[in-house]
């Protein structure tokens, strides 16, 4: 075996999986207790111990305030985003605002960034691999949903570094699945990867031609996953308790956590049987008595509850097919990825939609990790037996006048790619331009995700329209965005790897690594993951403590934040002025487009077109 062992990690919303290629064969690695699917749950025990994985899962019910699950839903998000708002309503651990509109998890007065939380999970996966392989692991390929934006990709990469891994590559989950499916099989096929994870849905259409895996299009919904199916069951059960006993289960974190667990178990049961018996003998105390919950959930009823969620996935499939220029008839295979795709209702619907039986000989929980490991092994050996040609899932946009944005690189463009545009100033002696970069499909800038903003002032000021500024946008093979502004006359440059908005700075990452908080995981010793045993004191809420005290103010908090963001540097700094501009966007703040000197051509500058076609960009 070579000295450098590399691994592939599928870092999932609900579960994670690690795999390595051993003697040319991918092998899913198990922890000390033989488990291959590891819950992406981090439990912070009293006294500073940190538990990760299936053992930590018990904490969701026993100690919900100090047990973090589904962190992937929050990674790379802004505090004011819809997803964080939703998480604050359902999660019992404390989610607080961090620097630059970022998100922090507060556990016993200690604040953790999302990359730190994910790093605990990654570190666990690394240790599982080291235990299974009997040697140290350094490099890893970590997968992300194809639809992840730059902020989420950067944050995941940071998590890997914090966990002490050399992140060889961030790889899209569906692409990894396709690699696992087609590697070494000399296929010539067009396939769709239907990837329904715990928290995200992705669909990718690929053309596999022997050793080339070319993604033709990818589409997704980062707000749709198996958790949403659980939520439907939770709602059903909570409403039942409410109507029968007039008790609000949602207001009790313990009862709610029990409901959540029961709902998830019922969903899994329905993957193999027609009826799931839900029975919680002591759900919640009411008037001094324990209320028991018992319910038979039939597959038929579950299907009805979740039908619209399944239909939503096909809307995304429609889009992906349309973007790839193919129809279902052109496809040679459909591959299912993610635990929820075990549900018979989903398999049936997928079969109907794609007019073919999906591949069933592949474990949907492991396929992504297997693909990641295959790619990790080939990257490490520089002997690439397969070539992945991926695309960028979201359009890259530039903020322009009037609160609008303009597409610079279209979604589903192959990566790596770059694009250079030339802009000029409109006011005399203007010495600064603001460059704001977004990802998304909305014309209104605010409808997209802001990746970052920077000011460029290194150019030589001059009369309006005379100054030329080159702005180069580029996306790497990992989907990571870089933007550079340059004055071609002076050569002055300003650049940013864009994700700076809510992410961690390099200094912060180094500080976290130096602090070595993740080392606690290793202190557990050789006995393997600890379960919350009978002798262990179960952390309990103190009597009279109301964990929901902060709940009523949630709405107020969020709306306050939304108002505040208009006053902060990242948002609306320019919009206040620009929205007053007429519908034509003609304001004194505009920067007109200048002809570009591209590729050493000899073209003379041409007059600009009609005014309403002109590109505008806010300045200060």
């Amino acid at each position, binding site marked *: 075996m070579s000295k450098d062992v590399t691994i592939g990690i599928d870092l999932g919303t609900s579960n994670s999986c690690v795999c390595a290629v051993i003697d040319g064969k991918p092998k899913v690695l198990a922890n000390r207790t033989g488990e291959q699917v590891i819950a992406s749950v981090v439990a912070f025990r009293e006294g500073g111990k940190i538990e990760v994985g299936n053992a930590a899962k018990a904490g969701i019910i026993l100690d919900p305030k100090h047990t973090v699950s589904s962190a992937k839903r929050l990674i790379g998000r802004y505090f004011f985003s819809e997803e964080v708002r939703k998480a604050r309503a359902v999660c019992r651990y404390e989610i607080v605002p961090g620097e630059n509109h970022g998100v922090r998890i507060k556990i016993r007065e200690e604040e953790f960034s999302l990359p730190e939380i994910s790093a605990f999970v990654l570190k666990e996966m690394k240790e599982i691999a080291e235990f299974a392989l009997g040697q140290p692991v350094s490099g890893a390929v970590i997968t992300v949903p194809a639809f992840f934006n730059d902020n989420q990709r950067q944050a995941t990469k940071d998590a890997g570094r914090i966990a002490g891994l050399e992140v060889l590559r961030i790889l899209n989950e569906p692409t990894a699945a396709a690699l696992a499916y087609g590697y070494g099989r000399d296929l010539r096929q067009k396939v769709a990867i239907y990837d329904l994870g715990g928290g995200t849905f992705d669909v990718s259409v690929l053309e596999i031609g022997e*050793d080339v895996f070319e993604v033709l299009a990818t589409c997704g919904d980062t707000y749709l996953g198996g958790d949403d199916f659980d939520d439907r069951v939770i709602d059903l059960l909570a409403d039942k308790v409410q109507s029968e006993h007039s008790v609000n289960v949602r207001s009790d974190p313990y009862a709610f956590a029990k409901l959540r667990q029961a709902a998830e178990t019922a969903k899994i049961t329905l993957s193999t049987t027609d009826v799931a018996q839900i029975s919680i003998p002591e759900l919640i105390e009411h008037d001094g008595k324990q209320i028991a919950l018992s319910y038979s959930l039939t597959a038929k009823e579950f299907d009805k509850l979740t039908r619209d969620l399944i239909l939503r996935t096909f809307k995304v499939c429609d889009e992906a097919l349309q973007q790839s220029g193919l129809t279902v008839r052109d496809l040679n295979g459909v591959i299912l990825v993610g635990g929820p795709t075990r549900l018979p209702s989903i398999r049936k619907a997928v079969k109907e939609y794609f007019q073919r039986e999906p591949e069933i000989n592949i474990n949907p929980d492991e396929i992504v990790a297997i693909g990641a490991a295959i*790619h990790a092994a080939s990257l490490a050996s*520089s002997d690439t037996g397969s070539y992945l040609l991926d695309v960028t899932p979201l359009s890259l946009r530039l903020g322009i006048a009037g609160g609008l944005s303009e597409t610079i690189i279209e979604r589903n*463009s192959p990566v790596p790619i770059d694009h250079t545009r*030339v802009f000029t100033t409109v006011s005399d002696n203007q010495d600064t331009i603001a460059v704001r970069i977004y990802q998304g499909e909305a014309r209104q800038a605010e409808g997209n995700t802001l990746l970052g903003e920077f000011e460029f002032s290194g150019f030589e000021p001059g009369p309006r329209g005379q100054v030329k500024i080159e702005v180069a946008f580029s996306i790497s093979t990992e989907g990571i965005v870089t933007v550079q502004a340059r004055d071609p006359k002076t050569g002055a440059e300003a650049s940013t790897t864009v994700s700076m908005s809510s992410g961690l700075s390099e200094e912060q990452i180094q500080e976290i690594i130096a602090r070595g908080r993740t080392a606690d995981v290793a202190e557990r010793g050789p006995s393997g993951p600890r379960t919350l045993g009978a002798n262990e004191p179960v952390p309990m809420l103190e009597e009279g403590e109301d964990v929901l005290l902060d709940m009523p103010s949630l709405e107020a908090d969020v709306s306050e934040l939304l108002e505040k963001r208009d006053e902060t540097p990242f948002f609306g700094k320019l919009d206040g002025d620009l929205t007053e501009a007429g519908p034509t966007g003609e304001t004194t703040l505009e920067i007109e487009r200048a002809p*570009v000197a591209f590729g050493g051509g*000899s073209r003379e500058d041409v007059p600009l*077109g*009609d005014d309403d076609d002109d590109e505008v960009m806010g300045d200060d």
Partner: protein
Amino acid sequence: MMMNQSEIKALARVIDRLDYYQLLKLDPRANSSQLRVAYHDARKRFHPDCFLAEPDEIRGAVDRIARRITEGYMVLRDRNRRAAYDNALTSGHLRLSHEVEEEAKTEVQQQRGTTPNGKRYLTLCEEEERRGALPKAIQQLKTAITFEPKNLVFRQKLDRLEQQLKAAKKGSTPKI
């Protein structure tokens, strides 16, 4: 498939002097399936994943080449953009920049006019032209131009009609 370091460095140096066809080693008359083969071949030779262990200088060069290959493929696989590129190539543009492309688009739009009145008077001009009433055609076109003073296509047409009228007055236009 691996290229050696000096080849890569050399290619990165001359990349700004290559057109997309040269870059992809492609015949300018190649069809779309030939383009795809050439694209895959080029991407394989310069895939950033194959150069992870190389020094920064090489990785930077590979990345630059890979980006340009993608750019070329994106342009050539789209029929309209390929036509615009082929046109730009004849005037010495080796890359299809946003501005050149916009210009080509504008030209297409200007053919038929960009305003309702411009379009209307262009149609009237063409009717007069078909009837052989050149002075009236010129009159209508001039009206069209008052609505679209920046429309270069209109102005070129006006020049042409005025030349024709001049020639007709001399009586030298042969009848077919």
